[in-house]
């Protein structure tokens, strides 16, 4: 394995920051969105141009400045980061297209501000993906929290204020109150914060301290919405739908989970976790979240809130997978980052498209909508299959590996959790789809004049749904990245 | 016992300065009238000046202005008191005068607004604002 010095990661991060002045100064909406697209395309190309290097087993490293002795602001592109960056960068383009359709269609105010902070959020996301150490990760993590605040509270009404308050309380409160001290303790113990293939904490602390640190980290990255720090996510549903899509699939929650995965693998190391028997604890925390979130999702009528609780559950799959500490489990967990992103973003796009076309938010008001919006609901169906984990969608692959992981780790309890939660997700998704396409006679709520949303809002979910299916048949690039990441962690 | 007496009496200048200092400080803390506080402040500063000046003292020495012609053939330092504290205290006096001047100006400005210099009355006015 070679280490290549290159400024590319920095540029990839900065692209969307650099475009901000252009967005602010552009008076014409078309030009403004043109810049957004250009930045998104450049960013994706930059990320993809690094892909072959990574697939050849190399790493790309770039050190910006040394903030604290021994801990620099430093980027490193490895397989796991690459996987995440690919997902985020490709989804940014699609989300941008969707945003244009959505924001224009609903004639939202302050669109410039929206695009600016969207771009900033993407920068932060790529930054998290490419972080080489905990400090850099923390930096971009905080940047993301702040950049998404104006997005979440976009409507600037009373509800948005309450949601924004909750959002910041959870996210900043935990990151300053838990992650920061934990990070400083790590630095104090070892003098470094650099992610290592087997972690850097080994030998530096005893079991009790490590346990405390672990708990601080898992709950501290509240973006991962591990219960009981999940409350902000349903509240943040007041945001415009593209933002919800961004929060759930591209940026925020995924960043949270990604950070936890990084911490578990890069700070603690699987060996240390195994040695202290922390795997079970992690899995238990994740399982509770999975089951409880799925149960709550069952009782939701608001579509977006249901999706939010579904997300909370699904994210913990990833943590569960890594917590199993078996290669297959970790593979499944990491793959799930990508698979869930594509599936969930489809669902959010669809929810937004339905809202645009009909103004409806609640599931009970969507009876028969499949007849009027076949494309949208078709995509919704595929997305939900992916989330449930059924073929022929990518979700199946990751769930398959998760199941194999539980078998490999000989953890039957968690196997049951996985299967149970799959059933639960089927239970909350399938009725929606069924009633949309096959309304009970005479109960269909829509007349002929309701049609599909504008093309810019329909095409994105269809595309992402399509990708979900493609990923089932051809998961090769992601799969290779993940297996490389797992090999890296395994140390061989 | 005699040691103690010697210690006490041998440094009575410092004792007196400290007592004076504390009188001034007490006035600054406890008095209600702003001008009385200012006077306390002045006493406080003056006592420090006295304290310094008494540092410069040497038994049997005269003021540090060299006698005529003395400068040319070797000066016996024990004949003259230490000039440095005097220099320092010239500065301190000037500082205390300047502070006093500015303080009076501020007091007048306070009086212009509140028509009183009693602190409790001023505070009452401020609270009722």
């Amino acid at each position, binding site marked *: 394995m070679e280490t290549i010095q290159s400024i590319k990661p920095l540029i990839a991060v900065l692209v969307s920051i650099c475009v901000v002045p252009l967005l602010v100064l552009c008076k014409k909406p078309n030009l403004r969105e043109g810049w957004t697209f250009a930045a998104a395309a450049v960013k994706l190309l930059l990320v993809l141009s690094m892909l072959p290097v990574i697939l050849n087993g190399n790493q790309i490293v770039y050190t910006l400045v040394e903030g604290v002795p021994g801990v620099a602001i430093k980027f490193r592109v490895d397989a796991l980061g690459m996987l995440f960056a690919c997902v985020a960068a490709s989804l940014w383009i699609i989300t941008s297209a969707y945003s244009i359709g959505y924001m224009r269609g609903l004639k939202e105010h302050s669109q410039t501000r929206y695009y600016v902070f969207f771009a900033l959020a993407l920068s932060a996301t790529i930054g998290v993906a490419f972080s080489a150490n905990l400090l850099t990760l923390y930096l971009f993590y905080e940047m993301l929290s702040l950049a998404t605040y104006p997005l979440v509270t976009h409507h600037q009404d009373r509800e948005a204020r309450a949601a924004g308050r909750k959002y910041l309380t959870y996210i900043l409160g935990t990151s300053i109150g838990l992650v920061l001290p934990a990070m400083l303790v790590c630095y104090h113990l070892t003098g470094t914060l650099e992610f290592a293939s087997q972690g850097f904490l080994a030998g530096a602390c005893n079991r009790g301290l490590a346990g405390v640190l672990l708990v601080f980290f898992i709950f501290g990255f509240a973006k991962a919405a591990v219960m009981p720090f999940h409350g902000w996510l349903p509240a943040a549903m007041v945001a415009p739908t593209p933002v919800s899509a961004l929060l759930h699939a591209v940026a925020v929650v995924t960043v949270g989970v990604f950070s936890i995965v990084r911490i578990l693998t890069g700070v603690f190391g699987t060996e240390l976790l195994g040695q202290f028997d922390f795997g079970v604890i992690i899995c238990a925390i994740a399982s509770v979240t999975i089951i409880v979130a799925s149960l709550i999702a069952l009782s939701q009528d608001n579509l977006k809130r249901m999706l939010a609780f579904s997300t909370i559950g699904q994210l913990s799959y990833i943590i569960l997978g890594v917590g199993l500490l078996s290669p297959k489990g970790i593979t499944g967990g990491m793959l799930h980052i990508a698979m869930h992103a594509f599936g969930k973003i489809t669902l959010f796009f669809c929810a937004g498209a339905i809202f645009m076309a009909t103004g409806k938010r609640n599931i009970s008001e969507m009876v028969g909508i499949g007849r009027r919006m076949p494309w949208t609901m078709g995509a919704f169906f595929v997305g939900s299959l992916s989330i449930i984990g059924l073929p022929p969608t990518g979700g199946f692959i990751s769930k398959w590996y998760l199941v194999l992981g539980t078998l490999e780790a000989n953890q039957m309890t968690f196997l049951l959790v996985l299967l149970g939660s799959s059933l639960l997700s089927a239970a909350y998704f399938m009725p929606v789809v069924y009633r949309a396409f096959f309304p009970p006679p005479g109960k269909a709520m829509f007349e002929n004049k309701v049609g599909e949303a504008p093309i810019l809002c329909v095409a994105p979910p269809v595309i992402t749904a399509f990708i979900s299916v493609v990923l089932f048949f051809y998961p090769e690039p992601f799969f290779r990245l993940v297996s490389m990441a797992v090999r890296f962690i395994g140390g061989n | 016992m005699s040691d103690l007496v010697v210690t006490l009496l*041998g440094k009575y200048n410092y004792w007196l300065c400290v007592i004076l200092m504390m009188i001034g400080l007490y006035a600054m803390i406890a008095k209600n009238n702003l001008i009385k506080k200012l006077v306390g402040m002045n006493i406080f500063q003056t006592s420090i000046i006295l304290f310094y000046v*008494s540092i410069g003292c040497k038994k049997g020495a005269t*003021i540090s202005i060299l006698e005529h012609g003395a400068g040319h053939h070797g000066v016996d330092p024990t004949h003259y008191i230490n000039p440095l504290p005097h220099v320092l205290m010239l500065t301190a006096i000037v500082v205390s005068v300047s502070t006093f001047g500015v303080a*009076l*100006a501020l007091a007048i400005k306070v009086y212009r607004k509140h028509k009183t210099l009693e602190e409790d009355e001023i505070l009452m006015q401020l609270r009722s604002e």
Partner: protein
Amino acid sequence: MKAIGLIIVVLAGALLLYSTQDFPFWGDPASPAGTHTATYYLTKAFEETSVPNVVTAVLADYRGFDTMFETGVIFCAGLGCFVLLRLSRSRDEDSYYRHVATGITLHIKSAKIPDVSSEFERIDTLWTPYDLIVKTVCRLLAPFVQLFGLYVIAHGHHSPGGGFQGGVILGASVILIAISHNMRTAIGRISEKTIHILMAVGVLLYSGIGALCILLGGNFLDYASLSRILFTNEIEARSLGILGVEVGVGITVMAVMITIYNNLSSDGRLDEGL
């Protein structure tokens, strides 16, 4: 508050007194303070500056930098009083005039006598009786006071005195006029603008001499380097440099004293004094 004050005072006093136990006895010639730097000043000052008054030598030369800021402090005080108290004029008020020859006073509402000729003089609203003896005595005294002030400044090298003391005496002479006559008379002699410019000129003289030393190749306030333009040896140059800064100090102190008095006594209106 009184109880707290008492506690603080007693505590601080006790600490201070307790710590005097390690002090040398009063007047001990062998104490560190009496020997370390003091010996140097006493033995070397005359050689190096040719000023017999060691206090002046230390004040204006060895620790001349301190003294410059000390003058700066005085300047700040003057400026501070001005800034805090001075009110802008042009308020229509009643005014009083006195006919000089007869002593008759006129009370004019919201107007002024356009051209204040020598026959009329403006007097304070709170009218003080016309006092010939005090006025005359003070007016006669003022020049002598000023002369003494100048002597104190100039003779600071050889006797107790110097810029501060002399400046205060000079200022007092003007204040004397202001008290015995009224403030208008004093300001008529030396206007507010003049005072302020003098205030600045005095300290500028001091720091300017210091800066001149840099230009002449020495360190800041190194009067020895003035010898090149004064055509004397370095020691004499130091002595002259000290005199120069003392004059500067004197000017500033005088001007500041007057400013402070004027502003404080007239509540910033500079029209009528005490």
